[in-house]
């Protein structure tokens, strides 16, 4: 039976009893099972661990903990054996009995399950020595490893809700705002607006009712840190919101969560009901006179709803169209009341700032960008995953030291940051320190923290077209520059990639980009041209070869490439002929095959199936 916590002492006592129950002599097997873990088969591994612990009668010696994502998606499913810190990766259910009988019982490390260094090939037994983790500062994301996200006791055991106790009984709302201001925390959703300042404005705004909102409509393709936080540590987000609500003077909050995130939704729903059970949400929180409740709204799969005014319209049950922001949402937002909206990662930073102090927090990062930032390192990178680093770390450190560089011996070409509002940063800027200002100077932006790595096989015109196509689909259609401008930009880019490009297209693209950035209603539109502008700025030669020579140097744009078979390499195995959906390949067994160009649909299948590298794309 869950008892409501009536004061701070109750919370302290609860923590003590949770810690006392913990058997420190026990081994702990921690298996990560966020969405990427589950996609890679973590659930089967967990089931097997449960069976095997029972079978080998090890229940007294070992505890199994299922957590959210640890960030190293590339090698999922993983298990971390504590207290030793042994790190096993790419696990299959059949590996489990050995882990119990060898590692847990005999204390032996199983060589074949260890991670090998991408450079040296050396096996690394302990998590702390793996380069992917070594250079990170996982002050927020690191807690994912420590807690079962479906257990509020786990969160309280690591000091959860202590920050809330501190603000409710030791700090005035204004002092909380001052502390957040001093920390230098800036919004992690993309804009980078100082969080404490926003809270202050909202508190001062006129009105009796105020709302706080957590924006969990993480729509940038290639960014999934918010999902992992909600899946792996939902209470940290809730605690941040409750503290924020106290500071602002709000008694009602909303989490607007993306429809595509079922596990995050499930864990958040559970977290809310647990917090209510303990009296950490609801009336008279921890016995104080502060009331606050949180409701969840599920998104409907519209990218534009990540924009604050569109999001608020969607919560109200309307079509998610943004409005002009002459009047800011902190004065008139949800239901025309003062509303403070922050993103998931921003909220998750708050409890730590309160408990460890603004001074401590402000020491991390650069002069204007404080703290850490979680990035999703994806695309053509060896170590795909979520990485948390101090602001100001260079792209080179992130991509090479943590990410392990580019796979397959390919050459790095660019990194795309900031999602569809961001830009592509070329190799010559690889030593750029990553913070809000420097990314903007380079023509990109921080955005929500997606970092998509591209190599020599990626075409930058195609990437620009991809983002414009994305935004054209997602444009709500309310304002003309965005609705019509993006359509026209797409048509021009499609023309260039299909060999119909003209010299004057570049000028027209630049002109349309200006119209968008000057005239669109919301940030989706005003930043929409960034991918085009940045690729034009750094990769003009790629546009030129498409337009002038009608060639795609990376071999991506279908209309500009030809598939052919290299005679010397083809041994006539016939695999490509059998696979070709257009029946465009002919040849006798054991003789050189030929592609009929008139029939070829350039689907790439022959290239993929050929084991001899005999298919050429140029």
């Amino acid at each position, binding site marked *: 039976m869950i008892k409501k916590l009536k004061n701070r002492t109750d919370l302290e006592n609860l923590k003590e009893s949770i810690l006392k129950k913990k058997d420190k002599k026990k081994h702990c097997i921690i298996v990560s099972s966020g969405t990427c873990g589950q996609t890679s088969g973590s659930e089967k591994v967990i089931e097997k661990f449960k069976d095997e612990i029972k079978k080998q009668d090890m229940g007294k010696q070992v505890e199994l903990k299922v957590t959210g994502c640890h960030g190293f998606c590339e090698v999922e499913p993983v298990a971390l054996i504590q207290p030793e810190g042994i790190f096993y990766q790419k696990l299959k259910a059949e590996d489990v009995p050995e882990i119990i009988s060898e590692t847990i019982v005999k204390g032996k490390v199983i060589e074949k399950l260890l991670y090998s260094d991408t450079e040296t090939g050396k096996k690394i037994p302990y998590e702390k020595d793996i380069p992917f983790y070594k250079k990170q500062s996982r002050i927020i994301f690191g807690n994912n490893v420590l807690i079962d996200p479906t257990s509020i006791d786990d969160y309280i055991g690591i000091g959860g809700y202590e920050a809330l106790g501190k603000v409710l009984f030791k700090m005035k709302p204004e002092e909380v705002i001052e502390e957040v201001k001093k920390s230098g925390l800036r919004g992690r959703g993309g804009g980078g607006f100082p969080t404490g300042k926003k809270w202050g404005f909202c508190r001062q705004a006129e009105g009796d009712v105020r709302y706080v909102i957590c924006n969990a409509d993480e729509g940038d393709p290639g960014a999934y840190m918010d999902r992992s936080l909600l899946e792996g540590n939902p209470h940290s987000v809730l605690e941040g919101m409750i503290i924020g609500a106290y500071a602002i003077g709000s008694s009602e909050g909303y989490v607007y969560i993306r429809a595509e995130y079922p596990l995050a939704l499930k864990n958040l729903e559970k977290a809310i009901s647990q917090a209510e059970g303990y009296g950490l949400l609801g009336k008279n929180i921890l016995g104080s006179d502060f009331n606050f409740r949180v409701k969840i709204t599920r998104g409907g799969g519209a990218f534009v709803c990540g924009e604050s005014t569109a999001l608020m319209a969607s919560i109200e049950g309307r079509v998610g169209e943004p409005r002009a922001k002459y009047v800011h949402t902190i004065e008139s937002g949800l239901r025309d009341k003062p509303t403070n909206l922050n993103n998931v990662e921003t909220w998750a930073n708050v409890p730590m700032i309160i408990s460890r102090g603004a001074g401590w927090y402000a020491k991390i990062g650069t002069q204007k960008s404080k703290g850490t930032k979680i990035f999703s390192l*994806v695309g053509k990178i060896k170590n795909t995953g979520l990485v948390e680093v101090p602001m100001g770390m260079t792209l080179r450190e992130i991509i090479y030291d943590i990410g392990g560089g580019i796979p397959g011996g390919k050459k790095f070409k660019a990194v795309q940051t900031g999602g569809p509002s961001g830009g592509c940063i070329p190799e010559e800027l690889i030593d750029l320190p990553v913070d809000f200002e420097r990314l903007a100077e380079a023509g990109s932006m921080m955005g929500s923290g997606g970092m998509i790595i591209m190599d020599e096989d990626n075409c930058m015109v195609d990437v620009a077209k991809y983002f414009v196509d994305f935004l054209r689909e997602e444009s709500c259609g309310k304002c003309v520059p965005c609705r019509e401008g993006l359509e026209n930009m797409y048509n021009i880019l499609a023309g260039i990639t299909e060999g119909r490009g003209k010299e004057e297209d570049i000028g027209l693209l630049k002109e349309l980009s200006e119209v968008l950035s000057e005239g669109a209603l919301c940030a989706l539109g005003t930043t929409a041209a960034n991918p085009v502008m940045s690729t034009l700025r750094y990769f003009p030669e790629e546009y030129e070869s498409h337009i002038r020579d009608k060639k795609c140097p990376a071999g991506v744009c279908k209309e500009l490439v030809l598939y052919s078979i290299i005679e010397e390499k083809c041994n006539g195995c016939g695999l490509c002929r059998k696979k070709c959906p257009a029946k465009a390949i002919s040849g006798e067994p054991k003789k050189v095959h030929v592609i009929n160009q008139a029939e070829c649909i350039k689907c790439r299948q022959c290239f993929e199936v050929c084991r001899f590298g005999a298919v050429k794309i140029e």
Partner: protein
Amino acid sequence: MNTDKVDGIIKKYGKEQSAIMSILQDIQSEYNYLPREALEQVSKKMSIPLSKIYGIATFYKVFSLTPRGRHLIKVCLGTACHVRGAPQILEEIERKIGIRAGETTGDLKFTLERVNCLGACALGPLVMINNDYYGQMTSAKVDKILKAYD
């Protein structure tokens, strides 16, 4: 159509306009799409014009006004999947089942959708069929994977 079910859903969330998203989402999970009769009932019960409800149902991508197939194929076209060759996978699936993204096959076997990011970028290019994930996809693998569904 069982009108009680729709009534039950409305009752669960209340008749405020702000409940409309949740109500439509639950109706969709019940029927796999938004049947016209259900929307008419929602309109009447909640006193929201049917045109407004259609506006919402057509604006948000999760809603479908036509019945969807028994198997839902989602092809991830997030940036990470795109740079790893997702467009070719989508084209191959379109060729194999003879419909374009956003459509449903005539026998209601498959509905094909493109999604912007499933957030499992390490496995890209990624295809999801119902609740099964297929990572590191190639167009050559498409045929075999689709055959497992009937």
